[in-house]
Structure formats: structure tokens, C-alpha cells
């Protein structure tokens, strides 16, 4: 033990240095964010509550039942069921996201060829029952409506719809042609296709869905 080391030990030099540091820290501003009172700023790319984008043209979701999101989901929390109506046209019978199992990786958003899905910036949706966090397709559309109501501006674009660093020529054509979703022209009444008069009653329910537009499907292919 050198003399210097001995003196340092006797005079508690290192302990006093540490104590000076903690004292300095005590006088600095705490980093705590008192959550319910003050909220953290949300940065672009935040991945929160799931939603189906409501297509301003049709008033329904854009899903074309390609199953890509179901296949890519690492936690396998998406259930998709394709149904056929009496005219043998495919329609989205069931689309469920079990949000409690979701890991919010955003792969489903990235892979969707028509940008139908989005992880919104809402994160305060804890609930007392599991059922309330189990999103079916109607709930997903409602999530979008709730979220869109909080947005300012005319259009919405999610950065995960066309992720950075991926050559856009490798994306499907439909994905390349996606434009930011218009938020303004919200349809006063749900769109009823002329060919589906017989099922008008079903369509009239705001979130009901009978069939997907064939154009969207063609674009995807």
C-alpha cells in the first residue's frame, strides 16, 4: 500500500467523491415524468393501438384478405377468415387481433399490400376485461375513427406503410401507389355498391362489410 493510497483510505477520499456526486445529483432536476398528469411526447413511428384504415372512398376497411399479415405475425395473434356471400363473392368474414398477445413489431403494417392496417399512436386502452382488448374488425374500424378524430391535418401517412431502406420497386404495385389517407371527405352515409342492393341492410350498418372491391384485389396481384 503506497502512502498516497493509505492517505486516500484514511481520509475517505473516494467515498467523499461519491457523496459529492450524489449530492450534486440531488440538486439536479429529476427526470421523472408524472404520467397521468404529464404525458411523454409521442414521436413519429410510435406503435400503439391497432386500427383498420377506413377508406374514404368506400367507407370500409381496405383489407383484401391476402393473409400476409396473418402469416408474418410472430406472435400469431391475427385471425382472418374469408367468407363468401350468396353471389360467391369473397368478403372479410372475420378479422381479429388479440392485442394482449401482440408484440407491436409492426410487421403486419409493413407487409400489408394495400396499407389497410395501422398501429396508431394511442396507447391508453387498458381495460378491465380481456374482451375489451380483443379487437374484431368492427372494433378496429372504430379504433380508426377514434384516432382520426384526434388528428389534425387533411391526410394521414404512417411511416411503416412504406418502410425506409426497402427498395420500393420490390413492393407490390398496390403498395407503391398508396397515397396518404384523406381525413376530410368523410362519407355522410356508408357507401352501398350498386350490385349489392340485396344486402343493403347489412351494409347500412356502419361497420358491416360484404365484399371487397375487385380493383383492390387486382392491384395487389
Amino acid at each position, binding site marked *: 500500500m503506497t502512502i498516497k493510497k493509505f492517505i486516500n483510505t484514511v481520509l475517505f477520499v473516494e467515498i467523499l467523491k461519491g*457523496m459529492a*456526486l450524489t449530492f450534486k*445529483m440531488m440538486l439536479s*432536476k*429529476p*427526470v*421523472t415524468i408524472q404520467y397521468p398528469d404529464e404525458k411523454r411526447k409521442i414521436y413519429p413511428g410510435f406503435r400503439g393501438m391497432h386500427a383498420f384504415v377506413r377508406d374514404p372512398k368506400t367507407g370500409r376497411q381496405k383489407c383484401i384478405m391476402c393473409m400476409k399479415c396473418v402469416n408474418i405475425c410472430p406472435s400469431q395473434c391475427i385471425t382472418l377468415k374469408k367468407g363468401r356471400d350468396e353471389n360467391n363473392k369473397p368478403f372479410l368474414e372475420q378479422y381479429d387481433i388479440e392485442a394482449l398477445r401482440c408484440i407491436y413489431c409492426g410487421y403486419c403494417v409493413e407487409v400489408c399490400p394495400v396499407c389497410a392496417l395501422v398501429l396508431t399512436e394511442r396507447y391508453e386502452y387498458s381495460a378491465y376485461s380481456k374482451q375489451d382488448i380483443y379487437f374484431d374488425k368492427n372494433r378496429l374500424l372504430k379504433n380508426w375513427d377514434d384516432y382520426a378524430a384526434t388528428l389534425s391535418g387533411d391526410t394521414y401517412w404512417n411511416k411503416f406503410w412504406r418502410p425506409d431502406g426497402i427498395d420500393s420497386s420490390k413492393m407490390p404495385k398496390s403498395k407503391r401507389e398508396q397515397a396518404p389517407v384523406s381525413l376530410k371527405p368523410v362519407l355522410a352515409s356508408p357507401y352501398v355498391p350498386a350490385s349489392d342492393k340485396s344486402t343493403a341492410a347489412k351494409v347500412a350498418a356502419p361497420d358491416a362489410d360484404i365484399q371487397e372491391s375487385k380493383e383492390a384485389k387486382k392491384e395487389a396481384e
Partner: protein
Amino acid sequence: MDFSSAYQITGSGLADFVVRMILLLIKIAVVIVIAMLHVAYSTWFERKIIGHMQIRLGPMRVGPHGLLQPFADFIKLFFKEDIIPSAGDRLVFQAAPMIALFATVSALAVIPFFDDFVIANVNVGLLYLFAMSSLSAYGIILAGWSSNSKYAFLGGLRSSAQVISYEIALALSLVGIMMLSGSLNLVDIVEAQQKHWYGMFVVIQFPAYILFLICAFAETNRTPFDLPEAESELVAGYFVEYSGMRFALFFLGEYIAMIIMSCIAVTCFLGGWTLPPIVIQALPFLAFVPGIVWFLLKVYCHLFLYYWVRATVPRFRYDHLMSLGWKVLIPVSLANIVITAIVKYAF
């Protein structure tokens, strides 16, 4: 307290005795209530201080700035289930927290809080304090043994070893004070300090003061000597098996022990409720401030030191703890005694 007249139980003597007893009881009640409030708020103070030292806020939710947090904690602990291990020694298990708490609380009796306010002005005050602080270790050891759990048992064993090691250095560090003041009575010790212009024995007994502080940390099982309750290896140490009110008793005991150690340090080294005469001469208006203010201020500074050290220093390894106690602190305190004796004899 002079009890000599209390034995004449005739006529006015009896009435006098009753009045004295009632006054004494009121005094005790006041001291204990104030001590309990201090414990409650020293936990709040500790959480706040350590929080800010870790750049957090500490409790903020219950009341403004978390001021009602101690009461929320108390209510929670009070209504928790009281679990007694089936394989444990039931009677000892129930007695241990009370031994720990009562031994520490009874040490409050001899501490002079301010001029003429001391419950029992006994001539062996300092000796009594040592006795009580080692008695509280019995509570810890018995708790560790009666829980019939390996963690609690190890915690109790460590505590007994630690108390034996550091009790000696603690007592030896105060021998210098006894020699300088010529008394074990705490009031006399404070008055002896007033005879010097500096008014505080810490000036001439600085090494003893540092020794005392180190031993006080070890004696109260506080960081960096909190091996009996090292949560990373012993879960919680000797009170692993305790829950609810019984846990709260240990908790109270620990914090009262901290307050008492601060009180001893203030009384023996920092002039108790008095200010140094040189300060009073320079600023005469300070003489009108009640003594309890200075006493409490000094105690709060020591409590802050406890928390400050806890937020800074990591825990000692067990063999380091033992070698520090036996190979460093005891020799240094003995050397301090010898030097003090020589200097006192020479001058």
C-alpha cells in the same frame, strides 16, 4: 428524576408522588408520540432524499409531494395479514419484534432533548444507551432463530456478529468524551462542552466522531453495513418471515435506533441543544431561539447523512466488515483514548 421523595408515602408525600408520576407519564407520551412522528417522516424524508439523489422524485401521489405517504404505508401494514411460520417458535417469534422495539424506544428516556427536558436524568446515561442498543440486537437474533428460515437465521447470525464487533468500537469511541467531561450523564456532557469556547467536542475529538458515526451505521444495520438485511442475498434478512404489524415494529425499531444514534452523536459531539459560546457571542440574538430547534436541526443533519451514505456507498463484503471492525476501528479508538488521556493529563 429524583425519586428519593417518592418513598415517603405519607400525607402530601403520596399526592406529590402521584403528581410526579402523572407528569412523568405525560412526558413519556409526548416523547414517544414525537418520536413516532419523526420515524414516519424520516421514512418519507429518506425516500425523498434517495429519490432525488437518483434523479427521481420519490413519493408524490399521497398528499402534496407525498406528505401523507407514511400514513398510507402504516394503514397498509396495519391491515395486512399476520403470518406466523408453522415450523417456527411461536412465542419467541411474537416476542422478538417487541424486544427489538422496546429496547430501542426505552433508550429515548435518557436523551436530553433541550434544557431540563429529559425523562430520566440518570448518572449512567451513556452506559444505559449502550446497554439498550445491544439489547435490541437480541430482538434481531431471536427473530432470525425463531423464524426457522435459513435466510432469517443467516441474517440474525450476521447481526449478532456485527453488533459484537462494532459495539466495542462504539463504546471506545465515546470514552474520550467521558474523560473530557468527567461524567456519563448526558446533561453533564452537554454542559461540559459549554465550558469551552468551541462548545462542541467534535472539534477536539474529530477522529472519535468519525469512528462513532461508522460504528453507528453498523449498529443500526444501515448501508454500507446492512449485511443482516442484505436483500440481494438474504431476501430481507432477519425479518423475512414477518408481515404486517410485526414487520412494522422492526421497521419502527430500526428507524428509532437511527434517531437515537443521531441523538447520541449530537449530545456527545455537537453540544446537544446548545450552540458554541463563540457563536452566541458573535450573534447574541441566537440565544433566544429555543434549544430544541438546534437539537432537532443537528439530528436532522445526521439523519440526512444516513440517507446520503445509503444513496452513495455499496454494501461491504462480510470479511471486510469484520476486518474493518476488529483491525481498524478498535485499534484506532484505543489510540484515541490513549492520546486523549495523555493530552488531558498534560494540560
